[in-house]
């Protein structure tokens, strides 16, 4: 039995169909509300820069927030890249809405820069930079992450050009024409877009891996003496993939529910396949956590045990438990059931829990690191530092910046269609429903 298709594909896309910017009922009210909160977030950032100077502890929660955006919004565009690379037929409707998250993620760079400026000298403590001192860690980390964000934005822009260049490109202003590559849809231009998106995507993955390794070590491990874990950057990346998929699911659900021009394109096949991805990454999260924990528990080295007491067992036990339930326990025991994976609203609920759990996980990893005063030496950390709870300013910062992420996304989606028109047409051409024996079946073409 063929799986139910989105209505738009079933009736074939009409030649006159063009993707439009986001249209949501009562969107102006939502937009205004988010805008106010976003402004609050920016104000809190400026206040923090002005008032705290190079006090690293005051940047603990903003750093955790940045790491959370690195895990969620910066990783979400990878879903677009991977489905394009693997020619996953179910991914066509969600690629653009995934790629759009690269723009809000870019804004979080404003949090990273002042946080990096508070990092102490590398002398006398463990670091990945060994004896090298020029421009590290601050400048090197800023450069890598900056390149990553720019690559993500470029990738999003490049793949949007065919849709943005609707109408006669010659009539647009010179700046617009050059930004749109004087798009005329020639074979050469299409080949360029395809190759460039492939290589930019690979570059983005590489920069994400290297950038994550750098920032998680410089703003995490190297600030807690005794914490030495080679798998930690990988753990951060994989939990990020899980959270990125969760962000896509929530975005897809909300847009499908509230936007009439998105609704026809989202069907059960998106839910089922995203659910499978989410399950796979949930299992991988546990695997990477366990691979880290079992070694440290087994070897029982005092310096490593002290670090684990801070991050897991003692000081930040509550955020750890919240994170563990949010990232693994609840999602795993929900997503293993088929009825949950088939329903987008159920997946969206689980994904929201994952996103919140991921935030708590980043809090328990980076708040103790950035607020730790005894960063020099090689451990064990003694006495253990106390827990640093968020104050009102931290909470306003987090709420404001979370709203800013959503605000920027909605603003961008109003101008750049959240459904990729040219990819939807390509998807419609490459699939057909046909008779097979006594039933209906799908025909999927996979051109080289």
């Amino acid at each position, binding site marked *: 039995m063929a*799986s139910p298709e989105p209505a738009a594909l079933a009736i074939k896309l009409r030649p006159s169909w063009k993707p439009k910017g986001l249209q949501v009922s009562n969107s102006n009210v939502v937009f205004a509300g988010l805008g106010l909160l976003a402004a609050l977030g920016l104000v809190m950032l400026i206040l923090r820069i002005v008032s705290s100077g190079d006090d690293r502890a005051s940047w603990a929660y903003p750093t955790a927030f940045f790491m959370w955006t690195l895990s969620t919004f910066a990783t979400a565009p990878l879903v677009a890249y991977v489905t394009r690379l693997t020619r996953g037929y179910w991914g066509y409707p969600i690629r653009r809405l995934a790629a759009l998250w690269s723009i809000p993620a870019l804004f979080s760079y404003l949090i990273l820069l002042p946080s990096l400026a508070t990092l102490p000298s590398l002398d006398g403590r463990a670091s990945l930079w060994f004896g090298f001192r020029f421009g590290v860690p601050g400048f090197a980390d800023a450069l890598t992450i900056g390149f990553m964000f720019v690559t993500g934005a470029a990738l999003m822009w490049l793949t949007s050009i065919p849709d943005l260049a609707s109408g006669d490109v010659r009539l647009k202003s010179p700046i617009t024409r050059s930004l749109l590559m004087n798009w005329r849809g020639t074979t050469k231009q299409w080949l360029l877009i395809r190759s460039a998106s492939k290589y930019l995507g690979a570059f983005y993955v590489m920069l994400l*891996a290297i950038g994550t390794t750098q920032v998680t*070590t410089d703003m995490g*491990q190297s600030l807690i003496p005794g914490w030495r874990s080679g*798998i930690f950057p990988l753990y951060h990346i994989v939990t990020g993939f899980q959270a990125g998929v969760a962000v896509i699911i929530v975005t897809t659900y909300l847009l499908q529910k509230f936007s009439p021009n998105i609704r026809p394109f989202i069907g059960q096949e998106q839910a089922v396949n995203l659910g499978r991805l989410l399950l796979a990454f949930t299992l991988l999260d546990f695997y990477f956590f366990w*691979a880290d924990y079992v070694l440290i528990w*087994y070897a029982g080295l005092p310096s490593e045990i002290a670090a684990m007491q801070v991050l897991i067992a003692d000081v930040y036990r509550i955020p750890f438990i919240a994170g563990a339930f949010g990232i693994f326990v609840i999602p795993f025991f929900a997503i293993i059931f088929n009825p949950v994976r088939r329903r987008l609203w159920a997946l969206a609920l689980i994904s929201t829990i994952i996103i919140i759990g991921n935030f708590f996980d980043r809090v328990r990893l980076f708040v103790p690191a950035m607020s730790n005063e005894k960063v020099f030496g090689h451990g064990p950390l003694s006495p253990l530092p106390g827990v640093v709870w968020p104050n009102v300013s931290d909470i306003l910062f987090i709420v404001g910046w979370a709203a800013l992420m959503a605000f920027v996304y909605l603003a961008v989606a109003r101008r750049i269609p959240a459904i990729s028109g040219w990819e939807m047409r390509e998807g419609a051409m*490459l699939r057909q429903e046909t008779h097979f024996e006594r039933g209906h079946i799908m*025909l999927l073409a996979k*051109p080289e």
Partner: protein
Amino acid sequence: MQEPPSYDVKTIDRRLFDFMLHTPKWFFTTSAGLLTVFGAGFVVFISMLYFGLQFLGYSHPVYWGFLIVNFVFWIGISHAGVFVSAVLRLTQAEFRRPVTRAAEVVTIFSLQAAVLFPLIHSGRPWRTAYWAFPYDFIRGMWPNPRSPLVWDPSAIFTYLISTILFVYVALLPDLALARDRAEDPVRRWVFTVLALGFRGTSRQWRIQAIAGILLSAIILPIFVSVHSIVSWDFAVTSVPGWHNTVFAPYFVIGAVHSGVSAVVTAMIVMKWAFKLDGYITADHIDALARVLIAVATGWLFLLFLDFSFGLYGEESAEVDTWMQRIYGGAWPVLAPIFIITSYIIPVPLWLIKSVRRSFGWMFVTTILVNIGMWLERYMLVIPALERKSSLTFTYSEYIPSISEGILVLASFAFVIVGVLAFCKVLPVMPAADIREGALLSTELKIGRRSVPATLRE
């Protein structure tokens, strides 16, 4: 991706069962040569029993030599089967069809080869039997669940049994075909028993397909856990150079890298040996090469993490171990060979489409990968033991012996003979899968072009 040409059912059956029913001369000469090598290994083993482990060159402080390196290497090769078979089946990759049987068979025999090495390494293998069976519960002795040496056999035997089950479920339709085609009454009787009454009814096909999918899903955690547990044999210790949390995924991805490369090598040899043109095409090795590019790059990143976090704490013992791995003994020569053969030559070549679609080039590059990955396991195990203690007067250099080299070659001979013997008795490719692939492949006309397409539920 181009699908294989759609042969008719009779052609598929005839080609795939040809080697079972007719034995070419090269089979006898090749088997004789390989059995000779295996026999040499057996002679070394008997000599080791008589003279002791020092016959293999072991002494303080390096007690884990080639035997453990080979153990890890063959466990790594065995990961190909599940990756190719289970993962590609679950992702419905069409290019898996000709490859799955070969991958699963390589898994079974490489696992058996791997299991032999710890037994040989014990010096008195029969003692491992009467230490364990019966276990000395009466005197209050219990297995130590905290020991990776208890986790290892549990994981490996679970993997072996589940792989055999996995292969068997996939084999059922082919056993039924073999039963129906067998002329010899003894063969017919054997295949009748093994086929478990498979007649090709709708219900049997449905159950067989569901069993295959369920086993694919169940075997995945086992596949990840086996090499992770083998990695923890090293990582849970406090030996400098081993105590790194990244070992588990590093070993697993290295295993996939070497295992899939070994499967590609095996496929190319099978294509030449069994004349399977049209079944194993350039599209298949092209697709596997692309998978290998991603896996190899992931492996390189994990190697970078292992290296970086090994030196991260700037502990003198760790630094000494890494310096030994790069500058000590023969490593100024072997270390570059390792990285060049594992990544620097193969992966850039695989980025070129004509190389990916060339059987000769893929054969050479995948052999290079496995040479490099064997050196990688050697680099992991030996230098750490040479610098194990912080007392520098205990430092030594390990020199492998000829007898160990013979054992390594004997293990390769064992696996190849096992695979050949399997191919002689059972079809080298899943005939039912190939038939299904031919049935489901078609073309879709888009504009003026005909594009290969697949029927999908």
